């Protein structure tokens, strides 16, 4: 079979790029919604901010698993 394209070396970087897509979208939605809530109800800012950070931490874990997997499975 004739080779049309070939990748050499370490493809982990591509894996991390793929792993960053989902959390990127997630963080955008999450922070956007939290800001929307803060703009509508400024008195709820404190609670919203705390819960936003909890959400960020959970979403971000997925992207970070991607970066660690890149280092682990060489």
């Amino acid at each position: 079979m004739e080779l049309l394209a070939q990748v050499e070396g370490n493809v982990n970087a591509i894996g991390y790029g793929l792993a960053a897509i989902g959390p990127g979208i997630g963080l955008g939605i999450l922070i956007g919604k939290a800001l929307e809530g803060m703009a509508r109800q400024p008195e709820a800012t404190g609670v919203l901010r705390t819960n936003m950070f909890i959400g960020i931490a959970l979403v971000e874990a997925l992207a970070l698993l991607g970066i660690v997997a890149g280092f682990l499975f060489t």
Partner: protein
Amino acid sequence: MFEGTLFEFTRVNLIQLIMTVAVASFFIVAFRNPKIVPRGVQNLGELAVQFVQTQIIDMIMGVSGRRYLPYLATLFFFILAMNLAGLVPFLNLAGTSVVAIPLMFAIVAWLTFNIAGIRKHGFVPYLKTNLFPPGVPKPVYVLLTPIEFLSTFILRPVTLTIRLLANMMAGHLMLVLFFSGATYLLLDAEWFLKPFGLGAAAMGFFITAFEILIALLQAYIFTLLTALYIAGAESEHH
């Protein structure tokens, strides 16, 4: 120092030691001779502890969580100091960018929230509320119990560790990348590449500022999640 032995002492260990001494001496100086009307360093120390109390404990656990203040405040400031070591000149490496420190903190957090839950509810009821949440049809437990077990008892400490470790490591890699790129482009590259070196250096400074934010944020998030896990383990209904 002592290479190849059990007591091998690397640069990271030295940084961890320096930052530990720095945090300890800061709080000793701040609260050595406490006065009712605080002055000088004591002001700063009280402000710092107050932040943990109002922003983390009162938000998540309510007033009843204040007995965890010593643990959570220690956690916050120790992680913060370790993170900021990555930006202090001549140290330049975060103490939390090796797995030992985040793993240790995650294990302590895991033990704390489990012991808190077991002491509050007893061993069997605690496991029951965590592994068999009420209000679900019986057959669903076949699927739900393994997932709950995995997410509560295994993935929590693992994600705590990886979140802190990967954030600090990625920040360090980014700083190295931009500054070594800038040095190469400015000093060794062809003349027409030199302007790009300025851009790389500017990005390096931007990333440095960004890293200060990340260092604060990661210390905050680690403490916040620990508080959340403890509050969740102690609460009556899940």
